[in-house]
């Protein structure tokens, strides 16, 4: 064992950061790197590393940590490549850290205007890398390109006017020669979009508006002029299928969130999965999970590309556990519904019909007085990562079992101001709880669960070592991917609102989680 580690030391000392598209496409050839938001394009957040495994994870301990200077919710998902870890920090800082020692290499800070319009803090979920350039979407809705070797600014382009409520929070996705990114602002009545930029120059090549304009197909699903302020933002990173050259990107709630009276209709393409051609931004298909949403059930979580067997036939699927309480498996070539079922308690639909459309329970909508509905505003799950392990063929999701009392109010659009039309009160009749649930990928049937006293808001990662890493409140833990047994736990002392990653440096595997105001990196001796 000693000799083996020694052999790796000299090779890891030298690193020239360079990540052409082919490296991301072929990410499975370098299991020690984490090259894009979900490690590879499939959205699975699965690490092929197995040095840390079910047999030794009980000995996992803190290897190093990086404290951030300024406090806000710390949601970054690092990129780990060529000996360096790249992270974003609040309020708008990018740092390069030496992956072996944790020592900082450079730091970039963007000065922000002081009149930002944000629903949820100066959060950022990470970066994309292509060649030797890093890309991130800033809080004031710019797309920023930095030299990965020095942190020097290469270009800075404005995606949209932050004064109208637009912001950048999600990690962009690098596909071939383009940087694809969505935006946030769903509580401000913005009009959502997904953009494709030339990676070299920052020139915008295409924009897919997530709400069709007058005269375009789908615009008829918005009453009157309501489409102009319909939100449908795109604030979490999508997935990409190189084989069919398709990008999959989720969209958020229609605006105003809780009062649907002013936007009668299905409100396309809110709460949908959009399949796009990354070269042109042309839509291949869409699937709307929650037509005419009145509960703020964004459908922005990263979709996962997996294969599932249905009636003896292997199908190429795109799957996700939606905030609305249902798990969905779609055909990823056509967007057609394959299977779906609730994965948490839900009281708003009598199941899904043959096309996957929810059959709404009459009157299960927000009222002026308040209406009790499962799941809560936070959803059955939320933006944070689910994960799929090809070794167990299971889909793992961090769930919330919680209800909300939804109420409806007036909504009046004013640029840059909240446009909500109601809200949610918590329900005191039952204690909410959380769980990690393992679902069969083709059907969503429950295989096992590990329950938590309270629901939490953090992502999961699976590894080839047979583990599921995840967080609950301030605990970071590892479960046995086969049966959900708790194998290891660490009290971080700070709330966790992020997704884990794993990488290898100088022959050692590390597990990373941002917790509180620090990046924690765990390893074995």
């Amino acid at each position, binding site marked *: 064992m000693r000799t083996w580690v020694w052999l790796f030391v000299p090779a890891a000392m*030298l690193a020239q950061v360079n990540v052409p598209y082919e490296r991301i496409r072929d990410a499975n050839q370098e299991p020690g790197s984490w090259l894009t938001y979900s490690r590879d394009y499939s959205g699975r957040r699965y690490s092929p590393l197995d040095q840390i495994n079910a047999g030794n994870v009980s000995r996992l301990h803190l290897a190093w940590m990086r404290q951030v200077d300024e406090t806000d919710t710390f949601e970054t998902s690092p990129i780990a490549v060529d000996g360096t870890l790249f992270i974003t920090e609040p309020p708008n800082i990018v740092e390069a850290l030496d992956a072996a*020692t944790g*020592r900082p290499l450079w730091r970039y800070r963007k000065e922000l205007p002081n009149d930002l319009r944000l629903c949820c803090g100066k959060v950022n979920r990470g970066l994309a890398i292509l060649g030797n350039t890093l890309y991130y979407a800033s809080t004031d809705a710019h797309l920023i390109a930095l030299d990965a*070797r*020095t942190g020097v600014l290469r270009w800075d382009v404005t995606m949209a006017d932050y004064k109208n409520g637009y912001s950048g929070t999600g990690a962009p996705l690098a596909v071939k020669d383009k940087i694809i990114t969505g935006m946030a602002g769903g509580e401000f009545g913005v009009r959502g979009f997904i953009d494709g930029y030339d990676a070299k120059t920052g020139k915008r090549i295409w924009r897919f508006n997530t709400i069709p304009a007058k005269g375009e197909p789908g615009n008829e699903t918005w009453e009157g002029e309501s489409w102009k302020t319909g939100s449908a933002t795109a604030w979490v990173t999508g997935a990409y299928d190189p084989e069919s050259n398709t990008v999959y990107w989720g969209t958020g709630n229609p605006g105003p969130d809780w009062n649907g009276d002013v936007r009668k209709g299905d409100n396309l393409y809110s709460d949908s999965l959009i399949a796009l051609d990354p070269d042109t931004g042309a839509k291949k298909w869409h699937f709307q999970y929650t037509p005419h949403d009145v509960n703020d059930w964004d459908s922005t979580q990263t979709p996962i590309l997996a294969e599932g067997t249905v009636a003896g036939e292997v199908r190429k699927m795109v799957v996700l556990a939606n905030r609305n309480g249902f798990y969905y498996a779609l055909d990823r070539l056509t967007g057609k519904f394959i299977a779906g079922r609730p994965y948490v308690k839900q009281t708003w639909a009598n199941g899904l019909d043959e096309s996957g459309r929810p059959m709404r329970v009459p009157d299960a909508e927000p009222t002026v007085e308040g209406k009790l509905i499962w799941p809560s505003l936070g959803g059955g799950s939320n933006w944070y990562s689910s994960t799929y392990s090809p070794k167990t063929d299971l889909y793992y999701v961090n769930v919330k079992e919680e209800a909300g009392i939804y109420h409806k109010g007036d909504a009046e659009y004013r640029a840059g101001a909240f446009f909500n039309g109601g809200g949610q009160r918590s329900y005191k009749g039952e204690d909410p709880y959380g769980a990690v649930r393992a679902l069969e990928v083709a059907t969503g049937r429950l295989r096992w669960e590990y329950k938590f006293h309270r629901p939490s808001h953090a992502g999961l990662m699976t590894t080839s070592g047979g583990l599921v890493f995840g967080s609950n409140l301030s605990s970071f833990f590892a479960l046995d991917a086969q049966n959900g047994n708790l194998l290891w736990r660490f009290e971080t002392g700070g709330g966790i609102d992020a997704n884990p990653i794993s990488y290898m440096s100088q022959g050692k595997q590390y597990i990373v989680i941002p917790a509180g105001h620090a990046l924690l990196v765990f390893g074995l001796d």
Partner: protein
Amino acid sequence: MKLALSLIVSSIALASGMEPKAKLPNSRADLLRGEKLFQVHCSLCHGPKGEGARGPMLTRVKLTRAPDDAALLKILEDGIRGTEMPGANALSDRELRQTAAYVRSLGKVALKPVPGDVRRGAEIYLGKGGCAACHSVRGEGGVAGPDLSSIGESRSSAFLRESIVNPGAAVPEGFLLVTVVPNGGPRVTGMRVNEDSFSIQLRDAAGRSYSFWKKDLAQIEKERGKSPMPSYQGQLADAELTDLVAYLVSLKESK
């Protein structure tokens, strides 16, 4: 309208926990006092007339980190995290405002036009000078030397001219050229990126990063005060230097 605006401004200031104190004093006495305070507390890094030295030049209309007076006051009071700029804890509130008023007045002074031809200077930068091999401008160029994308905002023409003919006199704060000799490995020379008791990180002229545990090193050689940049004294004619400086002065943050 104006009243409404100022009400909004004050309510934002109040909401963010700041007093609405952005208005700076502008009497002659205040400015003179501000100038005196500047000499005592700021000139060491920013130059006696704010022309820039170790710290950025302040004789410009727009200060990148202080777009408005409230932001300027906050910087004077708290410093800038992650930089060498400290907070002026010893100054009273009134003195802070006087200093801020003087700093703002620096931006109102009409600058003497810099002689030289910007276009010819750009040609020298890319051609005869070979500057782009080590320096970058808007993402294009090498990484061995500092990025120059907005050097015209932070350095005066006199400082730039001196740096070109005598680079050793203008080695940036914290810059150190290091050669390490690993036990049984090839030696590596590069700029020190970080160092503590246990490890050292370097970046070589090609932009490759290296990280070494010190226990694995036989030797660390530090070349203090040395710049890897060659002197252009005698390499460029006087007129060429003037043009090159004019080009560098023209490099400002694009908006």
